[in-house]
């Protein structure tokens, strides 16, 4: 963990916020260190955006304390703004301005000196792969390019803390990689990043992850430790007819969960060493051909599903 130090940059304690009858955030506490890329992971409505807005000082909590970069955000929400950059889901790009004009506008807004603006603009556009499109109207960019331009604008001043709300939603895989390359570079220079995502595979790229459900943190750790903590083990069962394999393994002893995928079944079992041969025998018994069973590392989604109560199946 390269640039992570023991300096606390974001600290939230006992955060609560309700909107009418909806408890969007219920008792959230977080401690994020300098140089971390911290992921808030959860479905729509889990409370990701509300937490972001509370930390950015644009929404007041009903209860709880927040410190970001040493500033008491609840008491002095304005003072925290020079320390952080917040990119909401719908970042305010001006569609009838060009890429370069949007960047100019934000650098004025953040009072960036012309000299610094020129240096950073070139550097950021290059990293985002947007350098050839400076004269294109923002409204004519693809979804992925718009998100990257949003990030460039949010980074035109040098924030110590970056809050990104679902920055890669609607962004294609290639642009998504560019986006992450920029984030890792920022981390190297000591910027602390908090981002939210509904995509579990994205969580794997974070240094630490909080799994959110219904306004609460269900689990919080590094991706590797979350996976190690998953109850049971995951088996990858490849078969010519994965549907039949799925049926055959449904009621097998020791099976905690099944997931039928396109060309295989993922089976969570209590004990891989004991159950693999049993399941293999069961498939052979039912004449399900060309099967192959291997133990695989679970993904964050597997962990999430294994941790949550079955009655949460909304």
């Amino acid at each position, binding site marked *: *963990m390269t640039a992570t130090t023991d300096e606390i940059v974001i600290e939230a304690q006992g955060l609560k916020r309700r909107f009418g009858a909806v408890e969007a955030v219920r008792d959230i506490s977080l401690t994020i260190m300098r140089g971390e890329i911290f992921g808030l992971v959860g479905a*729509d409505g889990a409370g990701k955006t509300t937490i972001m807005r509370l930390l950015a000082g644009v929404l007041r909590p009903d209860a709880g304390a927040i410190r970001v970069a040493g500033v008491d955000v609840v008491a002095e929400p304005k003072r925290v703004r020079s320390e952080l950059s917040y990119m909401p889901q719908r970042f305010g790009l001006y569609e009838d301005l060009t890429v370069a004009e949007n960047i100019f506008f934000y650098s004025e807004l953040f009072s960036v000196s012309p000299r610094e603006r020129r240096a950073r603009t070139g550097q950021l556009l290059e990293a985002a792969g947007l350098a050839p499109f400076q004269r294109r109207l923002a409204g004519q960019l693809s979804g992925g390019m718009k998100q990257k331009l949003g990030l460039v604008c949010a980074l035109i001043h040098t924030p110590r803390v970056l809050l990104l709300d679902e920055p890669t939603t*609607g962004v294609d895989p*290639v642009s998504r990689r560019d986006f992450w390359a920029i984030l890792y570079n920022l981390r190297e220079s000591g910027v602390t990043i908090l981002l939210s995502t*509904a995509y579990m595979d994205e969580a*794997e790229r974070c240094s630490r992850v909080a799994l959110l459900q219904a306004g609460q943190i269900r689990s919080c750790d590094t991706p590797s430790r979350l996976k190690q903590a998953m109850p049971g083990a995951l088996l990858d069962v490849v078969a010519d007819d994965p549907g039949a394999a799925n049926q055959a393994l449904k009621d097998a002893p020791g099976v905690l969960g099944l997931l039928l995928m*396109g060309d295989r079944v993922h089976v969570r079992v209590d004990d891989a060493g004991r159950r693999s041969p049993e399941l293999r025998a069961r498939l052979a018994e039912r004449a399900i051909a060309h099967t192959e069973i291997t133990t695989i590392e679970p993904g964050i989604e597997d962990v999430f599903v294994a941790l949550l109560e079955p009655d949460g*199946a909304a």
Partner: protein
Amino acid sequence: MTGSQPVVVAEGLTKRFGAFTAVDRLDLSIAKGEVVGFIGPNGAGKSTTIRMLCGLLRPSAGRASVAGFDVGRQPEAVRAHIGYMSQKFSLYGDLTCRENLRFFAGIYRVPRQERAERTHFAITMAGLEGREDMLVRTLAGGWKQRLALGCAILHRPPVLFLDEPTSGVEPQARRRFWDLIHTLADGGVTILVSTHYMDEAEYCNRITMIDAGRLVAIGSPRELRQQGLGGQLFEIVCAPLGAALAALRQAPGVLEVDIFGDKLHVLVHEQAVAETLRPFLTEKGITADPPRSIAPSLEDVFVQLVSRRSKAPGDAGIKP
């Protein structure tokens, strides 16, 4: 999963907008009961292809047929035989579940005598018993999504198009949704899924990767993972990461390096190269664990195929 006649066929399917070719000579053959994913970056031609296959856009050249009807000559027959679900646009939030179903039954011209039975089927399938009279906007994402699916199949279409069907819903709800999709496929419905999220693609029997209007690769998730990468993928835990990244980019036999959380993903030419990585890093004062062989994700494969194409435009990638 092997039907006699393919249900969706495209031959040299092409769409031009002025001088721009959005879809370029696409060939496809999809069997009855298959779940096929369409994957590609924004602007790759995915939605143009889907719109042509739905009979909403006329091909500029080539042909396609869906459920036995030609998309260019019989677009209305095509539309009567398909279901379409997009999570974002298909439901009316200020109508109840039952009202949405009644509305879509009308739109899809479900015969009056079948409506009660189909509505009941959709409610049961979606697990919405007891919630029939709730306003749709008050439902959680998973229910909304299953209701949208119920609406899309009221008229028993043999072909179903899903547009990014599970974005933003709870993992458990997503799994339940895909179970439903596989059940429909078992019953003979052919399903086309368009997405740029690779984890949705994992649920498809076959995946079609599209880039710049061309078919880049087609195969099962497993086939694509095995053939698509052009090397072997390893994971290395090392520090400092930035220095390791820069060093490995210059290392012999290394095709690509990418940061992944607190590790590096390194694509190497062959197994032997992997063994040289740790000494190579140690020599430069970087601490490293031994590399660990990992299975590439579909996203790894896709990014690799697309970047290889942009380097060598003549290379069409994996052949069907």
